């Protein structure tokens, strides 16, 4: 049965009249004003590319997955994007299991139009081998609870999932250079999608009295309203898609007013989505730095600068991601995971970034940490070195306090320098790796002198 009809059957005539009468005095039954949006909350799951959006009582879950497929014949160097909707019967008594009904198809197509035609996702960057292999992005939208206005909530869920999704990195290899090797996430950091802009869907409801229109209707209002319009706009003032599939006729003037209102609302919602994604990215990068609970106070490489106990202070998360990506990029072997675990046990990544300008490689023992990483990549014995460095911890610690305030500022600006510096230093210490231990002891003694 048509979900639309079922919806309207659930309400009695009295309830419908009540809603209509209240609207004539610009009051909505949940206390909102006609052009007020419900509260949006965006949550993310553990995996990349899964989001759950709650818009008032409406809950939608969005999941993004990807697969390597053959491209379409008429677009050989573009990836594909497909959206699947699942109107779970637990969301609404009128949803039937099985094939998607009309409203499910319509919702899928509205979200699809907003993303695909407006080129929000860069599909050309999804091409791996032109004409042979491209990434196919699949967005699954699961409706968990129908509290009205499924389109907007689904759209936000799809956008949030796309922004937090990471696709595996792949490279060409093999004998003829035509084989595609997909690197698992432990080997190479997966990449985010290129999103040009965020198309936000805003739904309006029109009632029999033409001058009444509301934004973000609840499902009771949906049963009463006689027409709806979904405008997908982005924060730049572009209209990405409009869907007004029949229903109550409205004048052109009303349509333009609704579009202007939609653009105003879209900026607020875009900001909210971006903030939520930012929080998620921070958490994600903090998660990547695996902390040993015991080593918070004890530092493995005391010879290094500012290491101990400062992990509580976090630099901007972007640095973490960059540093980690750099690490993984440099040593893209299976050992890099091991290296990352060991180097990051006490938030060394941060310290490396903060290192740069006040770090004098010759007096402060550049050797230890980089030595350790280089040794790790060579697979030499780590524990011995750790013990040595623990001995140097105390002298190192004293320096940390002094160095920390200085480095807090230049840290972020000098990231690139430090990263490149580290690379070159790394190259140096690979040769230095065979240097006798006496040199390290010399550095330790010089440090004790300095403190």
């Amino acid at each position, binding site marked *: 049965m048509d979900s639309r009809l079922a919806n309207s059957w659930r309400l009695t005539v009295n309830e419908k009249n009540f809603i209509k009468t209240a609207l004539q005095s610009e009051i909505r039954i949940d206390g909102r004003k006609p052009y007020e949006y419900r509260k949006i909350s965006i949550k993310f799951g553990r995996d990349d590319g899964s989001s759950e959006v709650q818009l008032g009582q409406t809950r939608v879950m969005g999941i993004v997955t990807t697969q390597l497929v053959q491209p379409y014949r008429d677009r050989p160097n573009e990836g594909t994007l497909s959206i699947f909707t699942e109107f779970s019967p637990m969301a609404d008594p009128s949803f039937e299991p099985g094939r998607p009904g*009309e409203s499910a198809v319509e919702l899928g197509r509205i979200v699809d139009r907003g993303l695909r035609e407006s080129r929000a996702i860069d599909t050309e960057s999804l091409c791996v081998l032109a004409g042979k292999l491209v990434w196919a992005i699949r967005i699954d939208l699961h409706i968990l609870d129908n509290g009205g206005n499924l389109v907007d909530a689904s759209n936000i869920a799809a956008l949030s999932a796309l922004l937090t999704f990471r696709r595996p990195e792949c490279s060409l290899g093999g004998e003829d250079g035509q084989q595609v090797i997909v690197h698992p996430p432990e080997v190479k950091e997966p990449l985010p999608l290129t999103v040009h802009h965020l198309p936000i869907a805003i739904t309006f409801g029109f009632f029999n009295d033409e001058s009444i229109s509301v934004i973000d209707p609840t499902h009771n209002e949906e049963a009463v309203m006689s027409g709806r*319009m979904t405008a997908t706009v982005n924060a730049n003032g572009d209209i990405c898609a409009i869907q007004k599939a029949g229903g109550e006729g409205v004048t052109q003037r009303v349509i333009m007013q609704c579009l202007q209102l939609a653009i105003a609302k879209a900026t607020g919602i875009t900001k909210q989505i971006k903030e939520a994604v930012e929080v998620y990215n921070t958490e994600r990068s903090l998660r990547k730095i695996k902390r040993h609970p015991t080593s918070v106070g004890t530092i493995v490489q005391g010879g290094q600068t500012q290491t101990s106990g400062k992990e509580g202070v976090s630099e901007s998360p972007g640095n973490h991601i960059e540093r980690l990506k750099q690490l993984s990029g440099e040593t893209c072997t299976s050992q890099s995971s091991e290296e990352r675990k060991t180097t990051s046990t006490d938030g060394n990544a941060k310290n490396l970034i903060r290192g740069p300008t006040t770090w004098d490689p010759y007096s402060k023992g550049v050797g230890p940490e980089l030595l350790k990483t280089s040794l790790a990549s060579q697979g030499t014995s780590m524990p011995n070195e750790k013990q040595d460095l623990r001995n140097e911890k105390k002298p190192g610690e004293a320096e940390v306090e002094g160095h920390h305030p200085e480095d807090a500022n230049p840290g972020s600006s000098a990231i690139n320098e430090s990263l490149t510096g580290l690379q070159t230093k790394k190259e140096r210490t690979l040769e230095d790796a065979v240097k006798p231990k006496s040199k390290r002891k010399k550095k330790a003694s010089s440090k004790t002198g300095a403190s």
Partner: protein
Amino acid sequence: MEYVSHDGLRIDGRRPTEMRQLRAQIGNVSKADGSAVFEMGNTKVIAAVYGPREVQNKSQQISDHALVRCEYSMANFSTGDRMRKPKGDRRSTEISLVIRQTMEACILTHLMPRSQIDIFVQVLQADGGTRSACINAATLALADAGIPMRDIVTSCSAGYLNSTPLLDLNYTEDSAGGPDVTVGILPKLDQVTLLQMDAKLPVDIFENVMQLAIEGCKAIENYIREVLLENTKQLEYRRGL
């Protein structure tokens, strides 16, 4: 690719604000209560209306107004490559929904409670603007069936390529990737009932494109009224009035 030449001609020789040739016939399907064939350039669509009749599925009966059903399908031979799945795919489902809701807005359904009106639309030749052609054909078929309507619904599409608003896109212009605005209006009431747009467009340009499409709809409305008037004259003549 250049869709509008420097002296203002499109690929098929039209001017930007010129519509394709319109042709309509009424009464083709003799078994149906109302039927019409509508052509917009190379796009040819046939519509058949059955109703008002008894509801076939009693569970779907509505006590205070008529049930309107619509089915949109494209013939296998309608496009260049033979289509394997003309019905049931997502695009057809969405267009069926769109046409149904558009026609429902103009049919006086409260005059026919507990009954059913079926609208079947089939695309015989597809060259862009099939949605609009279907709505225009459905309007004619409903009028032919004598179903009471608030106003006739006319629909037209417009686009924006090479910085020019273009009226009534054909398939080549439609697949160029530029915006495609389809508008359906109730002309006498001056209300917009159907509005669909895809691809990005700034608000002010959108207003111009929508205005152009509405002008196109009004031109189609004049043509449809002529056709209906002519048809009525023929009926009167045959009945010896």
